[in-house]
C-alpha cells in the first residue's frame, strides 16, 4: 500500500488542471476524464480497504527519516479509520459525477464544474490522509474554496446569497483553526500529530489544554455544522446544484469536520471528562433541534439539510458517550461499541443522505419546483426515483432491514449499557419524529394526486441519473451487512482500535 498513498491526492489534482486545459478543445473530455479519475480512486480505495487490516502505512513525503525518534517532515498516514472515510468520499464522489453528466448540461461552462469537483475531492482526500497538523489546514482550505465556488455555480440570487453566508462563516472557522494551530505550535514546537501526542502526554497544563481544545472544537464544529454553528448549512445545501448538495452534505461535513474532531480528540489530546460532557451535550442538542427545525419545512432540500444536522448529532452523541467512558476509565467494551455505532452511522448517513439529495435533484429536474405543496403523484410517472426515494426514506428513519436501523440500534444499545437512559430515550424519540417527517415527504411528493399544471409532462430522468440512484440504493441495502459479526471484524473493529488505544497510533509513526 505504500506507493499508492500519494496517488489519492495527486491524481485528482493533476486531473483538475488537465480538464481546464484540454476541456475547451476536445468536446466531451471533461466528463469522461472526471468519471475515469474518480473510478480509479474508487478502485484503489476499495483495494486499500481489503488490504489494510491492523497495520497502518506511513508515507514520508520527501524521504526525511526521523532523527533521534523525532519525526521531521510531512507524514501521510493511512490507517483503518482513514480508509473507511476514503472509501466513502471517493464512492459518493464517483456517483455524483456520473449523476452530474446529465444534470449539469443545463448550466453553462461545464468544464469549470468538473475541474472544481476534482479539486474538492483532492482536498478531502488530503485532509483525511495527512498526519501533520498544518497540512490538514492547507487541504481543508483547498476543498472549502472549491466548495464555495461550486455552491454558487448557477449564478442566481439565492445561490449567491447562500455562498456569501457560507464563505464568511467558513472563513471565520478557518481563522479559529489557524489560531488553535498557532497555540499548539507555541508549546510543542512541532506540527506532527504523533509527536504532539508524545509531548502532551508528558506534561499537562489544564488551562492551556482547555483553550486549545475549545478553539479547535469551535473551528471544526463550524465546518461540521454542529448546533450553535449551523447557520450556514440550510442555505448552502439547499441552494447548491443537486450533485454538489449530495457531496456537501454527504461527505464534506464529515471529511473536514467530524473526521478531524474525532482524530484530534482521540489521538492527539488526552480526553478530559468536562470536554467529553460538552461534546455529548452538543451532539444531543444537534439531534433534537435539527429534527424540530426540519418538521415545518416545505422546501425539499431545506428539509433534507436540517435532517443532516440531526443525523450528525447522532454521530457526535455516540462519539461523546465513548469519550465519557474512556475518560472515566471504566467499561472499555461499551466505549468500543459506542464508537463503532458512531462510525457505522457516519458511513450510512453518507449513503442515504447522498441518495436523498440526488432524488431531490431528479424531482427538481423533472417538475421544476422544490416546494412540496406544488407537486404530487410522481410515483406513477417517475418509478425509479420514487422507488429509490422510498428506500432512502426508510433507511434514514431506521426501519429494518435497511442500514439506518442497525446503526441507530447500536447507538441506543450502547447508550443504555452505559446507563445514559435519558439520551437513549431522546435518540429513539428523534428517530420517530424523523420517520414522521419523511412520511410527509413521501406522501406529498409521490403518493398524492398530481396538481393540474404538471400533470402531463413528467418523464423519468435520463439514464446516468437513474444509474447513480439505483447503485446508491443497492449500497444502502448492502451496508446493513456491516453489523454482522464476520464483516464487522474486518472493517469497523480496527478503526475503533486505532482510535481508542492511545499508543497504537504514535508507535506506528515514531517507533519506525
Amino acid at each position, binding site marked *: 500500500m505504500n*506507493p499508492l498513498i500519494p496517488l489519492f491526492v495527486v491524481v485528482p489534482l493533476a486531473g483538475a488542471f*488537465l480538464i481546464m486545459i484540454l476541456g475547451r478543445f476536445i468536446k466531451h473530455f471533461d466528463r469522461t476524464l472526471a468519471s475515469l479519475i474518480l473510478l480509479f480512486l474508487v478502485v484503489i480505495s476499495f483495494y486499500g480497504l481489503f488490504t489494510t487490516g491492523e497495520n497502518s502505512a506511513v508515507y514520508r513525503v520527501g524521504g526525511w527519516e526521523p532523527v533521534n525518534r523525532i519525526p521531521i517532515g510531512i507524514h501521510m498516514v493511512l490507517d483503518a479509520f482513514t480508509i473507511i472515510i476514503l472509501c466513502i468520499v471517493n464512492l459518493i464522489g464517483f456517483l455524483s459525477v456520473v449523476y452530474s453528466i446529465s444534470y449539469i448540461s443545463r448550466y453553462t461552462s461545464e468544464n469549470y464544474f468538473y475541474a472544481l469537483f476534482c479539486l474538492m475531492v483532492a482536498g478531502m482526500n488530503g485532509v483525511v490522509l495527512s498526519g501533520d497538523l498544518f497540512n490538514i489546514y492547507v487541504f481543508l482550505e483547498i476543498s472549502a474554496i472549491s466548495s464555495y465556488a461550486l455552491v454558487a455555480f448557477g449564478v442566481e440570487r439565492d445561490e449567491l446569497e447562500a455562498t456569501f453566508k457560507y464563505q464568511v462563516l467558513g472563513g471565520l472557522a478557518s481563522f479559529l483553526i489557524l489560531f488553535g494551530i498557532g497555540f499548539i505550535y507555541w508549546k510543542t514546537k512541532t506540527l506532527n500529530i504523533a509527536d504532539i501526542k508524545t509531548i502532551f502526554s508528558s506534561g499537562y497544563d489544564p488551562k492551556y489544554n482547555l483553550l486549545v481544545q475549545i478553539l479547535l472544537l469551535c473551528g471544526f464544529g463550524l465546518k461540521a455544522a454542529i448546533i450553535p454553528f449551523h447557520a450556514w448549512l440550510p442555505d448552502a445545501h439547499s441552494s447548491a446544484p443537486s450533485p454538489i448538495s449530495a457531496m456537501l452534505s454527504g461527505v464534506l461535513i464529515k471529511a473536514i469536520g467530524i473526521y478531524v474532531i474525532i482524530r484530534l480528540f482521540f489521538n492527539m489530546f488526552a480526553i478530559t471528562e468536562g470536554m467529553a460532557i460538552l461534546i455529548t451535550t452538543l451532539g444531543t442538542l444537534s439531534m433534537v433541534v435539527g429534527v424540530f427545525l426540519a418538521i415545518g419545512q416545505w422546501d425539499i432540500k431545506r428539509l433534507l439539510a436540517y435532517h443532516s444536522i440531526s443525523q450528525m448529532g447522532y454521530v457526535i452523541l455516540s462519539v461523546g458517550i465513548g469519550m465519557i467512558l474512556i475518560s472515566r476509565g471504566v467499561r472499555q467494551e461499551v466505549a468500543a461499541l459506542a464508537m463503532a455505532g458512531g462510525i457505522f452511522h457516519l458511513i450510512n448517513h453518507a449513503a442515504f443522505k447522498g441518495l436523498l439529495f440526488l432524488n431531490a435533484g431528479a424531482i427538481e429536474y423533472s417538475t421544476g419546483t422544490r416546494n412540496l405543496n406544488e407537486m404530487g403523484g410522481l410515483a406513477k410517472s417517475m418509478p425509479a426515483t420514487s422507488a429509490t426515494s422510498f428506500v432512502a426514506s426508510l433507511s434514514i428513519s431506521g426501519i429494518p432491514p435497511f442500514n439506518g436501523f442497525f446503526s441507530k440500534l447500536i447507538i441506543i444499545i450502547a447508550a443504555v449499557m452505559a446507563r445514559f437512559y435519558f439520551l437513549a430515550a431522546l435518540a429513539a424519540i428523534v428517530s420517530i419524529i424523523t420517520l414522521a417527517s419523511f412520511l410527509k415527504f413521501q406522501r406529498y411528493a409521490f403518493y398524492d394526486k398530481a396538481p393540474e399544471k404538471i400533470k402531463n409532462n413528467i418523464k423519468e430522468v435520463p439514464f446516468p441519473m437513474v444509474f447513480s440512484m439505483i447503485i446508491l440504493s443497492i449500497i444502502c441495502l448492502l451496508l446493513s451487512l456491516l453489523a454482522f459479526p464476520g464483516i464487522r471484524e474486518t472493517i469497523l473493529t480496527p478503526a475503533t482500535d486505532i482510535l481508542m488505544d492511545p499508543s497504537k497510533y504514535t508507535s506506528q509513526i515514531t517507533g519506525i
Partner: protein
Amino acid sequence: MKGMTIIVKKTTQLIAGIVFLYGIYIIIHGHLTPGGGFAGGVIVAGAFILLILAYGSDFLKLVKEEAGSTLYENLAVLVALFLAISGLLFGTRVFFLNWLPKGTPGELVSAGMLPLYNIFIGIEVAASILSIFLALVIFKEEISK
C-alpha cells in the same frame, strides 16, 4: 476602462520592464534570499497589471489575454506536479524527493530541485493573479455595456 495620460504611459513603459526583472530575480534566488515562488510571482503579475492599468482595456484584447494566462497557469502547475512525481523514479522512490545534486550552499546553482520548483510556482502564481485581475476587468466591461 480608458487609459491614463501620456506621462503615466511613458513612465510605465520604462518601469514595467524593471519590475518584471526584479520579480524574476526574487524567484530565481529563492533558495538564497527571502522570497521564492509566491512573492516573486506576485511582483511579476504586478508588472503586467501596471501595463493594463496604464493603457486601458480598450487598447488590448483582454479575452484572448485571459485565455492565454489561464493556459500558462494550468501548464505550470502540471509541470510542477510532474517534477514532484519524478521523485518516484530515482533514489528512495518517494514523492517530492530532492534528487538533483546539491552543490555548495551559497551558490546560485545549488540545492537540487528547489530553484526549479520556485520557477514553475512563480510562473503559476503570476499567471493566476493576472487571470483574477483580467476576469474582474472583463466582467466590469460586460456590465457597463
